[in-house]
Each structure stands twice: as structure tokens, then as C-alpha cells.
């Protein structure tokens, strides 16, 4: 079978599985993306490779994975651009202080707990080719991620976008996003510089210089995209081609500098004009193809690298449970306490903690980077993938239980009182 035939068959299988699982998960009030993530894991050695190794080897021969990886990486570059595109500093308007304090506390608390956990896990789940500093910083980063896209989708689906909770959650997630990617960029730079010809200080200076050029130079140039959009009333093919050029060049330069290509793609999205109509027109051009085609391929590729079978025995499952506990305690606890300290009522603060605990596919992106740069061992990668799935999965039921149940009860009580009032009159 030719490489193209294999890839086409893989795409068909991945799309069918992802849509089916996505549909099933929507049926149990979960975001579709959770089902798609699970689909990816099921197609890998954790289920298909375990139940039917022959089928798995025929469907995903190791020689074909380069092609699948290439396609899914390109999709991921576009996806990271979209994540950056959706970042809007206007989300912080009026609550900048609250959002920054809450968000940074919700990053630093799981980071601290993740680092403390690294002290225990490093001799047990890593080896001497990984420096402790790299391991601990990466574990901290992995624990502190929030998935902005999934969170935004949950808020939209639950009609919470216009509420104080929704507004605070979006602000915090926006700060979380930019902070977490900055931390990740720093960690990747640190890890890669130890094997690079460039000394760390020079890599850091060049990276900062590039970020400066993007934020203060390219951002102004990118306004031309919006001007062209206003003039023609649509995003033309030429504009789209230039945007793609910007994404690819930015991704290429950050990869070259020892950051990761995905950081460059995210940065390209951040410097795009933020006018709502322009952003939604651009999202309209790119989002569907990215979400429907490329992301399931990325989930499948992640699934093929995830071997839950490596997590075997009581000892390994104990580490796994510890990772779950620390991840939830750090993110949920940190965000809840910080929001409470900032004056939010307990119910809202807890709901915010639940929302920011959503790690979703952004965590998958981060973990894949960790595996690529060699900081994560295969079993630890599998454990963290399970943690990402679990923390995303529990978000909607917990939110419904903590926040929406009382809201519905409150609404019903108001309706009853209004009815009684009307009868009295």
C-alpha cells in the first residue's frame, strides 16, 4: 500500500471514530472535543493495539506515522494560531487586577504542587538524561495549564458568557493562556539550550528580540489585513495567503530559536487585529477545517504515542492517582482560594476553580512537546494524558452540580414567588 493510500485510510478511520465518540459524549453533556480526545486514545496501543495488534499494525504501520505526524503538526500550528487569535486583551477590561491575581495564583499553586510532586516522581519516573530542573519546571507547567478553547465552549454551551462568572473565567483563562505559553516557551528554551550550540543567554536574547519584533512591529503591519478586510468586505485569498505566510514564518523562526514552532504560531495569532468581525471572519475560514479534520488527526497521533498499558501495577497507578490529586488540588484549589481572596462569593469562586481546572487539548499539546523534547518518559506521558482527560471530563458535571444546580433552583424559587405574588394581586 502506498503512503498516500495508508494516510487516506487512516484519516477515514480517525474521522469516523472521532465523530462517533464526539456524538456520544455530546449525548452525556460533555464537550464534543472530549469524545474526540478519547477516540484518539482508543485508536492507539491502549485499546486497538492491545485488542487487535494485527489490525493496529496494518492500519498504523510505524513507517506511516511520519506522514500522519506531519499532517497533524501542520493542523496543530494552525490551531495554535487560532488560540492566539482568540486571545483578546479586551477580555481583561475592568477586571485586570482581579484576573491577573486570580489567574497567576491559579498557575503558581499547581506549579508549586507539581514541582513538589516532581521531587517524588523524578527518581521513580525519569532518568539521568533529564535534568531535575527541566523535569520539575515541565511538571509544574503541565499541572498549571487551562484549556481556553474548551473553557470558552463550555461557557457558551451553558449560557454563562455574559455572567460575572463567565466574564471572570474568560479573563482568567486569557491571562492563564498567555502566562502558560510564556512559561512553556521558557522551559523549552532552557531544555533545548542544553543540547544547542547557542548559549542560553543568547537564545533568550534572540527569543525576546523576536517576540518584541512580533508585538511591536508585525502587530502594526498585521493591521493591513483588517484594512484589506474592511475595503473588500471579506478576507481575500491573497490576505489569507499572507496570513499563512506569517504563521509559517513565525513558527519556523521560533523553532529555529529553540522555542517550539507552536509558540511562533500562537504569537502570530496574538498579533492579529482583534476587531470582532475580522476575527470571526478569519475563524470562519480556518476553524472548521482545523477542528473537524486536523485536531482529530492530532488526537489520533497523540493516542498512538500513548500506551496506557505502561501504567501497570499498583505502584504505577498510585503515581497516577497522585498526579490526578495534585493536578486537581493545585488548579481547583489555587483558583478557588485566589478568587475568594479577591472577594468572589464561595459559590462563584468554586465554579471558577472548576472551570480553570479544564485542561483539555491544550494540555495534550503541551504534553506532546514534553515527549518531543525528551522531558517526559512514556509512562509518565500516559499518566498525564489520563489526567488531562479526567480533569476535562469532570468539568461540566461539577460545574452543573456546584453552580448551575443552584442557579436553576434560584430561578424556580423566583418563579414560584412571582406566581404567588400574582395570585395575591
Amino acid at each position, binding site marked *: 500500500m502506498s503512503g498516500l493510500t495508508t494516510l487516506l485510510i487512516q484519516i477515514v478511520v480517525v474521522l469516523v471514530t472521532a465523530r462517533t465518540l464526539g456524538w456520544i459524549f455530546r449525548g452525556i453533556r460533555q464537550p464534543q472535543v472530549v469524545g474526540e480526545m478519547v477516540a484518539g486514545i482508543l485508536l492507539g496501543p491502549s485499546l486497538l493495539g492491545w485488542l487487535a495488534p494485527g489490525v493496529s499494525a496494518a492500519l498504523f504501520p510505524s513507517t506511516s506515522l511520519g506522514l500522519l505526524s506531519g499532517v497533524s503538526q501542520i493542523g496543530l500550528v494552525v490551531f495554535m494560531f487560532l488560540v492566539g487569535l482568540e486571545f483578546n486583551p479586551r477580555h481583561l477590561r475592568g477586571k485586570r487586577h482581579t484576573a491577573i491575581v486570580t489567574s497567576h495564583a491559579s498557575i503558581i499553586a499547581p506549579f*508549586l504542587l507539581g514541582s513538589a510532586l516532581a*521531587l517524588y516522581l523524578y527518581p521513580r519516573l525519569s532518568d539521568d538524561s533529564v535534568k531535575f530542573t527541566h523535569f520539575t519546571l515541565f511538571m509544574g507547567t503541565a499541572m498549571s495549564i487551562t484549556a481556553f478553547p474548551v473553557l470558552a465552549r463550555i461557557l457558551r454551551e451553558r449560557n454563562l458568557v455574559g455572567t460575572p462568572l463567565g466574564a471572570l473565567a474568560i479573563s482568567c483563562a486569557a491571562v492563564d493562556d498567555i502566562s502558560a505559553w510564556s512559561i512553556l516557551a521558557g522551559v523549552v528554551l532552557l531544555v533545548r539550550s542544553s543540547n544547542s550550540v547557542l548559549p542560553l543567554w543568547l537564545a533568550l536574547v534572540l527569543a525576546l528580540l523576536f517576540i518584541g519584533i512580533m508585538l511591536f512591529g508585525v502587530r502594526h503591519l498585521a493591521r493591513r489585513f483588517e484594512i484589506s478586510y474592511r475595503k473588500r468586505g471579506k478576507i481575500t485569498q491573497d490576505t489569507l495567503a499572507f496570513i499563512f505566510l506569517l504563521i509559517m514564518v513565525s513558527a519556523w523562526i521560533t523553532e529555529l530559536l529553540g522555542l517550539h514552532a507552536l509558540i511562533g504560531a500562537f504569537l502570530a495569532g496574538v498579533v492579529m487585529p482583534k476587531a470582532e468581525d475580522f476575527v470571526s471572519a478569519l475563524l470562519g475560514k480556518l476553524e472548521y477545517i482545523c477542528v473537524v479534520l486536523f485536531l482529530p488527526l492530532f488526537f489520533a497521533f497523540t493516542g498512538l504515542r500513548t500506551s496506557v498499558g505502561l501504567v501497570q501495577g499498583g505502584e504505577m497507578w498510585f503515581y497516577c492517582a497522585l498526579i490526578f490529586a495534585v493536578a486537581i488540588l493545585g488548579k481547583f484549589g489555587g483558583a478557588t482560594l485566589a478568587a475568594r481572596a479577591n472577594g468572589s462569593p464561595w459559590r462563584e469562586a468554586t465554579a471558577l476553580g472548576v472551570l480553570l481546572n479544564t485542561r483539555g487539548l491544550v494540555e495534550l499539546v503541551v504534553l506532546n512537546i514534553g515527549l518531543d523534547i525528551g522531558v517526559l518518559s512514556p509512562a509518565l506521558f500516559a499518566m498525564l494524558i489520563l489526567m488531562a482527560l479526567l480533569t476535562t471530563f469532570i468539568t461540566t458535571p461539577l460545574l452543573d452540580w456546584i453552580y448551575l444546580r443552584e442557579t436553576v433552583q434560584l430561578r424556580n424559587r423566583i418563579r414560584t414567588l412571582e406566581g404567588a405574588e400574582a395570585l395575591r394581586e
Partner: protein
Amino acid sequence: MKAVLLYLVLVGAPFAGIYGIVCLGQDLKPPMSVAGAWNVELTPRTADTVPCKGFIVSSKSLILKVTQTGPHLVLTLNDQSATRLSGEVNFESLTARSLEETETRQGASSIQMQANIDRHSRVERMSGTFTFANCPAGSELPFTAIRQQKGPGGGS
């Protein structure tokens, strides 16, 4: 002012904690890295006389792939379905045994592996023996292996 104070307490203090943890962990000693692919060479004279070695020496170039998580190892010899071993690395020695007791063409049903790793020379080298548990001759098969490329962490 309140926000600054809150920031110092909620963010500054944990930041100091992270710095402390990074300093504290510098003395930790994780297991030796053996992840990646190793080119295995069998001692020709012995290989010819061992009756149960068939599935190990079925191909010309014998590659041992090691997947590592901490001290835990999964080792795969050329043919994935027949020869997967699970083992551990302890300081500079490595022990493993086959995951499944499978019947093979040559009749051997399980393999054990024991090796020592030498990291002091320019190329990383492993030398040890494969032992065939149920082989009538109870044979041992010495080998040496050279690491192809250092695995990036445990990730290989």
C-alpha cells in the same frame, strides 16, 4: 495596594517555594538512562551452538529497543510479537524477562536477560547474556550491544 499585597502572598510566596524545590532536587539521583535503540551482536561461535536462539537471531541485524520510565523498562527485540521483555535498570546493571510465555518454532518459551552497561567509553556499550528458561540445553547466549543514539530522556 490590596491587589499588590495579595499578589505578593498568593504568587510571590509560592514562587519562592518553587525556587526552593529546584535547589532541593539537585541532589536527587534518577536511574541511568538506557532508552533508545541498541545494536546487538551475538558471539558467533556460541550463537551457532545454542538450540533455542532461533527467534533471536532470525534477522541479520538485531536491534534491541528500550522504552524506559524511571527504572522500569520494556525491551523489544526485532520481532515485536515474539520477544518483548519487561525489566529494570539498577545502577549499571539491567535485568529483564520475556513478558509472555510463548511457544516458538525452536521451542524456547521464555527468555531472561542480564546485562551490565559501560558508559565510560566513548560509545555506550552493554554486555550480558540471554538465558532461555525452558531450553533443553539450558543455554546461555552472550551478547554485546552498542547504543545507536542516546534516547532523548525516557522518551524513546
